[in-house]
C-alpha cells in the first residue's frame, strides 16, 4: 500500500489531510468583517451593564448610594452586593478553590475591584450612571509585596479569619494561601551541601497580562417564559462556564445554553469566570431582558487575569565538569486579593514542577508559597500550559548562571545534561513522565544552522572592539532549550472544579458523504475549523473541504474542558482521531457487506475500502455513507455517527531549541534583534502553515514580556500600566522576522503522535530573549538581572556595570 501511484497520490492530495498547509476556512468571514464576536451581538431590548470600580487598592466600603444614578433617565438597575446576597451570588467560587467577591462585600482588595453594576439602556448612559453612584470608602493599609504581606498584621481576608486550612493544606499566616511541595527536600539539600559547585540566584518573573485584542464580555438572555438562560461570552471553556453558571444560579444545567462566538484572542485571559459574567446573568434575570457587559481595555488590564508574578529562588549543583547533580527551587507567588489562579485542582502552582527542564537531574525539590496582596486576582497561564513559562524561565536562567559559575559555554553545559533519547519515557525527579524526545539532535541542528561557534567568535571580537572604544554596541547570544508539558490531562490527576480534563468529538457523516464534527474545545484564532477537519480527513477518507467543524455551543457540542494549555490537539485532537476510527470501523463493516466479503477481507485505502489483493473492487467513503442511510444491512444500525470522549493517558512534552542574536546599544539601552531561530518539535505536524503562524505569534508575545510588558503597581496599589500607552504590545515596527525549523518526534501515546504547539514559542521565547540581553553583558560581569528588559532597565544595567564611564 505504500507505493503511491499517481492515482493514489491525487486521491490523497484531494483529502487535504494531515501534513498539508491547507488554507484556513475561517478566513473568508474574518477578512470581510463578518466575524461574530460577543460585542457584535445585538438583541431586541438589550441593556448595557457597566461597573463602578474601586479607586482604592484596600478599603472598607462604608456605603453605596444609588439614588442619583437610578434617577438618571435610561438607568434600569444598580446592583450591589446587598442585592446579590439574597441569591447567594455576592461571592463566587474561584477555579483555585478560593472564593471571590462578585461585588464588593464590605471591602475592596484591589484597585479596579467591582463595587456596583449599573444597567442602562445604552453604554453611554451606563457610563454616566457609574459616575453618579456615590461610594464612601475608608482607606486601609495597602500591601503590594508578598514578602511584606507574610509579615504584616494587616488581615487582607477577614472572611477567612480562623481558617488555618485552605484548599491546598495548612495556611501559615493570615495572608498565606498555601504551600505546595514537590520532590525530595532532604535528598536535594544533602546533594547541594556536598556539591563541588553550587550556583544560587534569585529572580522575579514580573506580573504581566495576556491582553488579547478583544477584551472580555458577555451577553446574558434569560427567557422567563421557557425558563432558559442563554449566555454568549468570551469563554475559553464554555462547558465549564455552563456548569459553574448552573451551580451558582440554581438553574438546571439543561436550561442553560452557553455560546462562545468568535473569540478575538484568548491567551489565558478568557479561562476564568469573572464578576461581569455573573452580573450580566443576574441583571438579565432581574430585568427580564438581555444584558450585555463588555469591559474596556483599562478594566481588562486592571481586573481580569494577570499572569506570572513569581519570586523565584534557585540553587543548582554540579560537578566541576558541569554534570548537574541537584536542583532546589522556592517560589513566593503573588496571587493578589483572591486566589483565582486557573490551574487543575491538584496543582496550585500549575506544572511549575516541570522546572527540571530538559535535563537529567537526579534529585530536585520545589516549594511554592501562595500569598494574598492588594493586587488583582488572576494567575492565568498566558500563552503557556499552567505555570510552564515560569518553570522554563527559571531553569533556563539557572543554567546560564551555572555556566557563569563554571566558566563554561552555556550551549555545551546544556548538551552534557540533556536527557538522552534512549532514556525516554523518562521520569523526572519531580515526577513527570516525559513521553518522547530527541534533544541532542534538535540542539545540534539549531547550533549548526546559526553557526554557533562563529557567533561566539564574533561576540568575543565585539567585546574587544568595545573595550578599545571602537563600538558602543554589545552582542548577546540568547540560548534556550525548553520542554513543555501540555495537553492536560489525565482525568486521574487533572480536573477543574471536579470535572476531569478529558475532551471530546462527535461526528455525523451525512448521506451524501460530507460531515459535521463538533468538539468540546473552542478556537480563539488557532484555526481549529481547518486543522481538525484535516485530522478527520486522514482518518475517515472524506475531504477536509467536505467537513464542517463546530465548537463553542454547549447545546450542540459534546462536553469538553475547552481550549488553553495547548490541550486542543493533544486531547480534543486525539478524541477526533478516535471518533474517526469508530466511523471507519463501522464503514468497514458496511463496505464488506456491499462487496460481499468478510469484514477482515477489506482494508482502508485513503478514501475507500478495497478488497485485499483486489484493489479494483472497492467502495468509496461516499458510497459507504450513502449505504449507511439507505440500505437495510443485517446486524448494523442505520446511520454513520460516532462520539469519543478521550482521557489522555499522559501529557505530551513538546520541546524546542531557540537561538536569538541581539545587538545592544549601551548608551540608549535599545536592543536590536538580528536573528531569531526557532526549532520546534511538536510531534506529528498537522498543518505546517498554521504551526509557523503560531510560532511567529508566540515569539512576539514572548518578545513583549521579555522586553517591556508588565503590570506594575505603585506603593499604594495604583495600577501604573492600565492602558496601551504604558502596557507594551509590540507593533510591526518592533518585531523581527523569525526563522522556523523543526524536528519530528511523535508522541508515543497520542493516536496521531501530535503534541501541541501554540504555546511552545512563548514558553521558549521568553527565556531566549532574556538570555540574549543578559548574555551581552556576561563579559562585563553580569550574572542576572530581572525582566522586563525595557530600554531604561537595559541602560541601567550598562550603567551599573560601569559601561558609561
Amino acid at each position, binding site marked *: 500500500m505504500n507505493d503511491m501511484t499517481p492515482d493514489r497520490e491525487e486521491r490523497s492530495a484531494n483529502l487535504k489531510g494531515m501534513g498539508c498547509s491547507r488554507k484556513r476556512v*475561517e478566513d473568508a468571514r474574518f477578512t470581510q468583517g463578518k466575524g461574530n464576536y460577543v460585542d457584535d451581538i445585538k438583541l431586541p431590548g438589550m441593556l448595557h451593564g457597566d461597573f463602578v470600580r474601586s479607586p482604592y487598592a484596600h478599603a472598607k466600603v462604608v456605603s453605596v448610594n444609588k439614588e442619583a444614578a437610578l434617577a438618571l433617565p435610561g438607568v434600569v438597575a444598580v446592583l450591589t452586593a446587598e442585592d446579590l446576597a439574597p441569591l447567594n451570588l455576592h461571592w463566587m467560587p474561584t477555579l483555585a478553590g478560593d472564593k471571590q467577591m462578585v461585588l464588593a462585600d464590605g471591602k475592596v482588595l484591589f484597585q479596579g475591584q467591582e463595587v456596583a453594576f449599573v444597567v442602562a439602556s445604552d453604554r453611554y448612559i451606563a457610563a454616566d450612571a457609574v459616575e453618579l453612584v456615590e461610594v464612601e470608602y475608608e482607606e486601609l493599609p495597602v500591601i503590594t509585596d508578598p514578602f511584606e504581606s507574610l509579615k504584616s498584621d494587616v488581615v487582607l481576608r477577614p472572611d477567612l479569619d480562623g481558617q488555618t486550612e485552605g484548599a491546598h493544606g495548612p495556611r501559615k499566616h493570615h495572608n498565606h494561601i498555601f504551600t505546595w511541595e514537590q520532590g525530595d527536600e532532604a535528598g536535594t539539600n544533602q546533594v547541594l551541601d556536598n556539591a563541588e559547585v553550587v550556583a544560587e540566584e534569585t529572580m522575579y518573573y514580573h506580573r504581566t497580562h495576556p491582553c488579547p*485584542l478583544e477584551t472580555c464580555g458577555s451577553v446574558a438572555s434569560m427567557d422567563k417564559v421557557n425558563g432558559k438562560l442563554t449566555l454568549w461570552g468570551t469563554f475559553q471553556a464554555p462547558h465549564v462556564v455552563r456548569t459553574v453558571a448552573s451551580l451558582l444560579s440554581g438553574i438546571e444545567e439543561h436550561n442553560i445554553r452557553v455560546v462562545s462566538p468568535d473569540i478575538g484572542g484568548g491567551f489565558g485571559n478568557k479561562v476564568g469566570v469573572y464578576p461581569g459574567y455573573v452580573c450580566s446573568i443576574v441583571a438579565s434575570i432581574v430585568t427580564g431582558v438581555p444584558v450585555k457587559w463588555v469591559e474596556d481595555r483599562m478594566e481588562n488590564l486592571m481586573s481580569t487575569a494577570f499572569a506570572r508574578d513569581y519570586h523565584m529562588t534557585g540553587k543548582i549543583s554540579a560537578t566541576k565538569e558541569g554534570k548537574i547533580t541537584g536542583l532546589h527551587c522556592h517560589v513566593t507567588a503573588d496571587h493578589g486579593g483572591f486566589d483565582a489562579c486557573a490551574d487543575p485542582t491538584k496543582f496550585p502552582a500549575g506544572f511549575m514542577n516541570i522546572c527540571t527542564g530538559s535535563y537529567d537531574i537526579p534529585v530536585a525539590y520545589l516549594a511554592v508559597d501562595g500569598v494574598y496582596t492588594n493586587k488583582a486576582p488572576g494567575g492565568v497561564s498566558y500563552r503557556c500550559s499552567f505555570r510552564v513559562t515560569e518553570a522554563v524561565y527559571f531553569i533556563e536562567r539557572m543554567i546560564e548562571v551555572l555556566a557563569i559559575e563554571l566558566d563554561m559555554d552555556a550551549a555545551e553545559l546544556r548538551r552534557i545534561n540533556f536527557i538522552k533519547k534512549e532514556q525516554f519515557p523518562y521520569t523526572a525527579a519531580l515526577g513527570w513522565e516525559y513521553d518522547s524526545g530527541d534533544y541532542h539532535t534538535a540542539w545540534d541542528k539549531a547550533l549548526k544552522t546559526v553557526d554557533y561557534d562563529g557567533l561566539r567568535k564574533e561576540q568575543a571580537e565585539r567585546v574587544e572592539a568595545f573595550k578599545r572604544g571602537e563600538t558602543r554596541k554589545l552582542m548577546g547570544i540568547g540560548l534556550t532549550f525548553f520542554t513543555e508539558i501540555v495537553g492536560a490531562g489525565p482525568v486521574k490527576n487533572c480536573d477543574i472544579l471536579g470535572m476531569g480534563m478529558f475532551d471530546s468529538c462527535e461526528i455525523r457523516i451525512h448521506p451524501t458523504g460530507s460531515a459535521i464534527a463538533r468538539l468540546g474545545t473552542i478556537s480563539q484564532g488557532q484555526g481549529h475549523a481547518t486543522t481538525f477537519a484535516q485530522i478527520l480527513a486522514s482518518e475517515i477518507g472524506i475531504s477536509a473541504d467536505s467537513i464542517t467543524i463546530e465548537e463553542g455551543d454547549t447545546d450542540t457540542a459534546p462536553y469538553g474542558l475547552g481550549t488553553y494549555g495547548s490541550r486542543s490537539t493533544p486531547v480534543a485532537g486525539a478524541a477526533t482521531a478516535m471518533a474517526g476510527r469508530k466511523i471507519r470501523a463501522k464503514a468497514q463493516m458496511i463496505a464488506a457487506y456491499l462487496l460481499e466479503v468478510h469484514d477482515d477481507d477489506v482494508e482502508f485505502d485513503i478514501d475507500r475500502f478495497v478488497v485485499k489483493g483486489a484493489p479494483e473492487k472497492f467502495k468509496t467513503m461516499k458510497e459507504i455513507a450513502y449505504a449507511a442511510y439507505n440500505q437495510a444491512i443485517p446486524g448494523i444500525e442505520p446511520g454513520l455517527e460516532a462520539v469519543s470522549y478521550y482521557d489522555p493517558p499522559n501529557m505530551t512534552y513538546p520541546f524546542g531549541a531557540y537561538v536569538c542574536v541581539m545587538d545592544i546599544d549601551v548608551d540608549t539601552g535599545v536592543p536590536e534583534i538580528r536573528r531569531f531561530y526557532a526549532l520546534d518539535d511538536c510531534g506529528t505536524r498537522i498543518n505546517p502553515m498554521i504551526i509557523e503562524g503560531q510560532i511567529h505569534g508566540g515569539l512576539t508575545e514572548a518578545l513583549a514580556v521579555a522586553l517591556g510588558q508588565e503590570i506594575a503597581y505603585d506603593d499604594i496599589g495604583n495600577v501604573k500600566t492600565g492602558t496601551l*500607552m504604558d502596557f507594551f504590545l509590540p507593533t*510591526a515596527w518592533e518585531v523581527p522576522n523569525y526563522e522556523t525549523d523543526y524536528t519530528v518526534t511523535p508522541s508515543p501515546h497520542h493516536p496521531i503522535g501530535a503534541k501541541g504547539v501554540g504555546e511552545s514559542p512563548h514558553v521558549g521565547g521568553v527565556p531566549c530573549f532574556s538570555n540574549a540581553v543578559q548574555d551581552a553583558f556576561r563579559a562585563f560581569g553580569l550574572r542576572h538581572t530581572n525582566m522586563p528588559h525595557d530600554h531604561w532597565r537595559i541602560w541601567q544595567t550598562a550603567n551599573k556595570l560601569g559601561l558609561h564611564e
Partner: protein
Amino acid sequence: MSDKMHIKLTVNGEPKEFLAEPRELLIYALREKLDITGPHVGCDTSHCGACTVTLNGKSVKSCTMFVAQANGAEITTIEGIGAPDALHVLQESFKEHHGLQCGFCTPGMITRATKLLEENPSPSEEDVRFGMAGNICRCTGYQNIVKSILAAASEINSAKEAAE
C-alpha cells in the same frame, strides 16, 4: 447628555442619516447605530487600530473621533472593501499567506493596508512595517501580515503593468 445632532454620512457608498449625541464616538455610531460591526474596539486609546476606517480618503481610528466631527464624511469600512464573490487583492492575500488568526484586528489591518498601498504602491518591507505600526495584532507576530501586504502590492502592480 446633550441634544442630539442630525448626522449624515456616506458609508461604503450608501447615504446614512441618524440622530446622535455629539459626544458619541464614530466607532459606536458605526457599530451600534448602523450595524457595521467589522471595525472593532480594542483599546480606547488609539493604539491598536482595530477600529480603523477610511474617512475622506485617510486612515482614521474611529474610536478617537466624535461622530459629530465626521458629519458629512465619506467613510469606507472593511464591509466596503471587496465582495464575497470579488474579494479585494488584500483580502485574498491575507488568506493566502496566513496573515490572520483570531481575526479581530483583521478588518482594521486590511482597511489600513488599502490606504498604505494607495499612499505607496511599491513599499519596501520597512515601509510596510512602519506604515502598519498603528495597527496591533496579538496573534500573528506580523511576519505573515507583512508578507500578505507585500504580495498584494506586487500583484496589484503586475496587474497594472499587464493592463498598460
